């Protein structure tokens, strides 16, 4: 049986002759598929201590560990990065004593997780996240990420 499939060229180009760069779509390639998108929110009721805190757990229902990415909106009007891609990263104080706050996405074969982590190196004075709220927007790929 010969080659079977579909390819669509961009406007003005003849599909049988098109290069890969000139194709809008070709079934010869996989395409990045977002099979589950959604939102989550979290408000810090108190300032978190050191360590990792799970802010959200999303069951993806896939038979593999998928790829993923996400975005956040942060209710801190003084920040440059109110609306951005994950990870969220804050290094409040540099120098001999410093603290790192991060919010990241990670996945395993069952779930996608939104996690917060605080790491203190030298006991620097951290910002207080009490009352800070985040809205997250995540996308789970229909393709492996591990």
């Amino acid at each position, binding site marked *: 049986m010969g080659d079977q*499939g579909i390819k*669509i060229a*961009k*406007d003005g180009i003849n599909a049988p002759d098109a290069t*890969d*760069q000139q*194709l*809008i*779509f*070709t*079934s010869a*390639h*996989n*395409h*990045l*598929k*977002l099979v*589950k*998108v*959604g*939102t989550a929110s979290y408000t810090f009721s108190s300032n978190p201590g050191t*360590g*990792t805190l799970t802010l959200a757990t999303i069951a993806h*229902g*896939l*038979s*593999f*560990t998928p*790829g*993923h*990415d996400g*975005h956040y909106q942060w209710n801190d009007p003084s920040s*440059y*990065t*109110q*609306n*951005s*891609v*994950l*990870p*969220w*990263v804050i*290094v409040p104080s540099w120098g001999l004593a410093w603290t*790192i706050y*991060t*919010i*990241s*996405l*990670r*996945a*395993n074969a069952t779930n996608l997780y939104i996690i917060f*982590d605080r*790491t203190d190196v030298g006991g620097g004075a951290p910002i207080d996240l009490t009352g800070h709220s985040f809205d997250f*927007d995540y*996308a789970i790929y*229909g*393709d*492996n*990420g*591990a």
Partner: protein
Amino acid sequence: MGNYGIKCARAGYSAPDAADDEMLLHSAFFNLGIVSQGAFTNVAAGETIYTHNLGYAPAFDVFITNGGYNYLLPAALPGGTFPRSCMVTTTVLRNATVGEGGSTITGYYFVFKERLDENLSATNLQTTSTTPGSDSADRGIKIARAGYNAPDAALNELSVISGRKVANETARLEILHMKATGTLSGNIEVANTVIHNLGYRARVKWFIKITGGEWQAVRNADDSFINNGTNTTNLHIGYTGSYSCLVFKNRADN
């Protein structure tokens, strides 16, 4: 002769009326095609992950496995470490060198079709959002990847799928709205701004090529940050060199 083409709306939307970001496939827009993908194990700093030989530096994603989970690079790991992006050249996708902040990694890569050294102008065809309807029957399109049988193919064996009969799960492709390249400001206080004029916060992928270096992905880290507006995306980073930004039709504010 009239217009020719193909458009397929996402599950629940009507193809003739759907807004650009409600489409699954539209022959006026490129999708983020994957040239190659695969797992890798214990690739040392500076070593090649995959030889693509495309003749141009392509966009890419790399996930690493750490502590039983996967993270998209560049990442922020528990414990306050920031694994750096991998690097891509016109021939290879490689791990960062030790000098570039790299270490031995295990994970999964995607090399995309889109090249990083060119611009693609934005096109808006239909910007008015529509309301999705409910559909109890399975309808749509699915195209298997080469060598797989569409009716039997698993999700990661399909090239395209328009949706699944599961509530709140509709498949969508990354439809490319525009690509923009430019020169980095060299000052973290001065934003590198890409104007997309979509009217909503869009999904984006940023890449930079530091002077003397190779193309790498960039996200928020201890030396860079991104701020997305409804019509712009902005990268703040203190290096000199070039940037390339892919902006997609899909929203980042669902």
